[in-house]
């Protein structure tokens, strides 16, 4: 197993699937400005996925580029965490999911800038600027919806209760990570978790939200074991390329 390829694939798949989910908001945003904001974020993530998956394909050395990886793999070969494939739900659910993800990605990309994989560190440096904005945007919404009306507070608290079980997968590590850490390519996610805990706690407190105490933790995405949702996402995303092979815009 090519650990370097696997490592980049995981990061790329997280960006790709979350980008795809956010794209579903296009034309359906609660207001015009948020419709544009969410689709902007979607495009940022798909851009990151393009760079990451192209890099992964080159590392694999079997002639697969980013496009082939995105449009021709099946569910079990996707290595994204399950958090990013969950349904968008209402606007608050989408913002909470985004917040939990962004709060991870900011310190993660910050640390990745020191990776000995120079291509990866360059992608991290560029993506960090986008991520800082994503985090600001999602944090502000979590605060406003949490510390908002009774209805917005209850709804986003419910979203937090659901999503919290999937957040731990952000910090999942196995032998792939171990190998990457040893080579100076990857990072120890435990150090990221420390930062994430502090930031998330601060924002949720300002949002007057309660951190769930449900300790059941979901795992499996990194091994290709996904929820039923991924199948539908891929059907949407891959349909055209599979129906018209080698089709280009």
């Amino acid at each position, binding site marked *: 197993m090519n650990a370097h390829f696997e490592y980049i694939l995981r990061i790329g798949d997280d960006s790709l699937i979350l980008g795809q989910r956010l794209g579903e908001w296009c034309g359906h945003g609660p*207001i*015009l*400005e*948020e419709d*544009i*904001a969410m689709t*902007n974020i979607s495009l940022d993530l798909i851009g990151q996925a393009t760079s990451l998956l192209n890099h992964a394909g080159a590392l694999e050395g079997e002639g697969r580029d980013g496009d082939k990886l995105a449009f021709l793999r099946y569910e079990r070969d996707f290595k994204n965490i399950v958090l990013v494939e969950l349904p968008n739900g209402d606007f608050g659910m989408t913002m909470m999911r985004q917040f939990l993800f962004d709060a991870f990605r900011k310190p993660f990309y910050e640390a990745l800038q020191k990776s000995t994989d120079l291509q990866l560190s360059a992608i991290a440096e560029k993506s960090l600027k986008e991520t800082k904005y994503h985090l600001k*945007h999602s944090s502000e919404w979590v605060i*406003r919806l949490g510390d908002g009306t009774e209805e917005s507070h209850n709804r986003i608290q419910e979203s937090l209760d659901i999503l919290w079980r999937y957040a731990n997968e952000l910090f999942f590590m196995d032998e792939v990570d171990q190998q990457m850490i040893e080579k100076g390519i990857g990072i120890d996610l435990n150090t990221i978790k420390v930062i994430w805990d502090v930031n998330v706690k601060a924002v949720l407190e300002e949002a007057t939200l309660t951190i769930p105490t449900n300790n059941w933790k979901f795992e499996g995405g990194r091994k290709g074991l996904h929820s039923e949702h991924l199948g539908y996402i891929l059907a949407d995303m891959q349909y055209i390329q599979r129906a018209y092979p080698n089709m280009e815009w």
Partner: protein
Amino acid sequence: MSNREWPLWEVFIRSKQGLNHKHVGSLRAADAEMAVENARDVYTRRSEGISIWVVESKDIYASDPSDADSMFEPSDTKIYRHPTFYDVPDGISHM
């Protein structure tokens, strides 16, 4: 008046080479922080600028268009208000 819309904000953007903020449009937002973020998302997608000002529309006091003739036409016929109306006398080198 039942108003369930967020307040309206006017957006001004200064471009990279510019000295002044230009009015580019308006948007609705719940508060100033959101207004700046929305302006960034809606009005700087194509690198239109590097600085954003947002002002609540209600804070802008504008001249009444129906007063335009008395406000602005009189100065059209007062050419002596322009420096080019005056001849600089010979012998004065730095004016």
